């Protein structure tokens, strides 16, 4: 028996898993409908942007009616958002809250407790709707969750060792996360040989708070390489609406171009790389009409950047978890807007594209120059020593020296670079765009204003 298989058997002998049948699950994936694979949909859906909302409820019935509502508005990809107890591997609390949710008919979990619901039950729902489902979670150790997702027919797995740690956790050990996700990539790669590939997606928004595009792109490509290294054949890089139309267009072009370049650099030329766009992930206005405008603008930009998939927000964003009606309305509106946007002319801003490309290459040069022997250790060391620095990360490993502000056109610019290994030329370019007074308070005032740019 391989080491991987031995580890999987130990992980799946969890007391909350009801007798996992490896052979049966393998057989299910082998014979599963192509319609369940987003990787298949990406290939056959030439040029159209797939629309995926967010959402997850604790009980089977509410989850089922959420999916029903989405199918009425012709959704392309269904979400399965997992509750926070499951994300922290606390299946005991999730079980208790699921039982109470069922008894009292109130939602006591903020998502679907997949482990407690089990894969046999969940698979019935997924195969009934016969639409790709995307696993949305935020789990540092997702080794068990991903097995049950795939066994349920959920063939897209979001997350990664950096993007699910730095924005979400204060002290989950970063090195452990790399190893746990390495296991997840191997499981995905193994299942990918049976039918269409399992698609992996990285979580580009990070903290969604003034993250400069070069950091987003470096982390997207680092997670992509770590995934492809283990044999994953379909991968989505992603980013979220920056608050600047220009920066979104430039980011999408550079991200696509460099993702392919770095895949080739590690010797991978047979994987499909997709681009996913998240609508605005920062603070939303409390005015629902303004929210509608923000969502429309996001849809329009997704069309302009030629995103393979857009992940939607709702007009109820400022008020908590959206109802299924709000959520379905957002899907319907976004599809309507996207349908208007065909044959958009190509957009070029050579100066911005060159600067962003240089910054990403300069950071990667420093990462590859780290003396560690494997890519994950090089990336780990680079996070530790501030070569990768995510603004507003709560994690103790994050360097927190990088400071960004918006320029007059709302582009996110690097004000203090901390230990970011960008060249003097790149840094000068960033600085030349910033327009702050000399008052030492002005940078803090500017940051406060910039975070609330959509309010």
């Amino acid at each position: 028996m391989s080491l991987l298989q031995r580890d999987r058997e130990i992980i799946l002998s969890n007391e909350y898993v009801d007798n996992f049948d490896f052979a049966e699950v393998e057989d299910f994936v082998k014979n599963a409908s192509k319609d369940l694979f987003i990787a298949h949909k990406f290939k056959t859906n030439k040029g159209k942007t797939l629309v995926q909302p967010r959402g997850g409820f604790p009980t089977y019935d509410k989850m089922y009616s959420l999916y029903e509502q989405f199918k009425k508005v012709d959704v392309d990809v269904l979400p399965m958002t997992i509750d926070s107890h499951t994300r922290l591997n606390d299946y005991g609390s999730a079980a208790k809250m699921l039982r109470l949710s069922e008894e009292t008919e109130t939602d006591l979990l903020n998502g679907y407790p997949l482990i407690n619901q089990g894969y046999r039950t969940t698979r019935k729902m997924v195969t009934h709707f016969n639409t790709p489902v995307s696993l949305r979670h935020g789990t540092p150790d997702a080794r068990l969750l991903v097995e049950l997702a795939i066994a349920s027919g959920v063939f897209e797995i979001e997350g990664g060792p950096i993007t699910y740690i730095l924005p979400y956790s204060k002290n989950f050990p970063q090195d452990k996360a790399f190893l746990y996700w390495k296991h997840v990539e191997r499981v995905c790669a193994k299942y990918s040989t049976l039918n269409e590939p399992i698609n992996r997606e990285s979580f580009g928004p990070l903290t969604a708070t003034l993250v400069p595009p070069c950091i987003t792109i470096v982390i997207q490509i680092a997670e992509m390489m770590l995934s492809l290294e283990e044999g994953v054949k379909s991968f989505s890089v992603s980013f979220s609406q920056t608050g600047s139309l220009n920066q979104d267009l430039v980011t999408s072009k550079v991200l696509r171009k460099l993702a392919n370049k770095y895949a080739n650099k590690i010797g991978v030329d047979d994987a499909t790389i997709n681009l996913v766009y998240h609508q605005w992930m920062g603070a939303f206005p409390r005015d629902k009409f303004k929210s509608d405008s923000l969502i429309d603008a996001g849809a329009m930009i997704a069309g302009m950047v030629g995103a393979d998939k857009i992940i939607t927000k709702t007009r109820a964003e400022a008020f908590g978890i959206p109802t299924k009606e709000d959520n379905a309305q957002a899907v319907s509106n976004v599809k309507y807007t996207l349908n208007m946007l065909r044959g958009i002319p190509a957009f070029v801003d050579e100066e911005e594209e060159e600067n962003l490309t240089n910054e990403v290459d300069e950071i990667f040069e420093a990462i590859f120059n780290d003396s560690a022997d494997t890519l994950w250790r090089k990336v780990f060391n680079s996070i530790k020593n501030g070569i990768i620095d995510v603004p507003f990360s709560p994690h103790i490993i994050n360097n927190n020296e990088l400071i960004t502000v918006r320029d007059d056109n709302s582009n996110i610019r690097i004000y203090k670079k901390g230990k970011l290994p960008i060249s003097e030329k790149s840094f000068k370019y960033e600085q030349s765009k910033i327009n702050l007074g000399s008052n030492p308070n002005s940078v803090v005032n500017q940051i406060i204003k910039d975070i609330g740019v959509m309010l």
Partner: protein
Amino acid sequence: MKVVTGVVGNDIHVVANRLIDISLQSRGYEVFNLGVNTYLEEFIDAVIETQSKVLLISSLNGEAEGWCRELYRYKDNDSLKDVVFVIGGNLSVGEGDESEIVPRYKEYGFDLVFHQSDLLEGLDIIDNYLKGNTKIKIPMPKDLK
């Protein structure tokens, strides 16, 4: 001057914490930021370890009252007797009356209490308070660049 800061309790609201860190640094303080989800004991340990003269605790979800009400017990400690204790943020869960909240926190042992104050105005008050405090040498704010 050395300052220990962080967010008390099970509170992951990191944005204001980072803004406090940046603002204090721009005013010339040496900042030891313990970040989010910090317990009172960890704050006290850090103040002693770094020999800081100011402890600035913040709270956004309003849990601070439960976590900080026994601060006065620590103040007998010799290495803490010159330390200025400050707390700010949302200091009650739900609606709270400032005129009741501030005296309550002063009883818990805080020298300065800010309930839903503007960040920069609050820091100005702290600067001035420290200038009037004869036991402490005041840093000159230096420009960010």
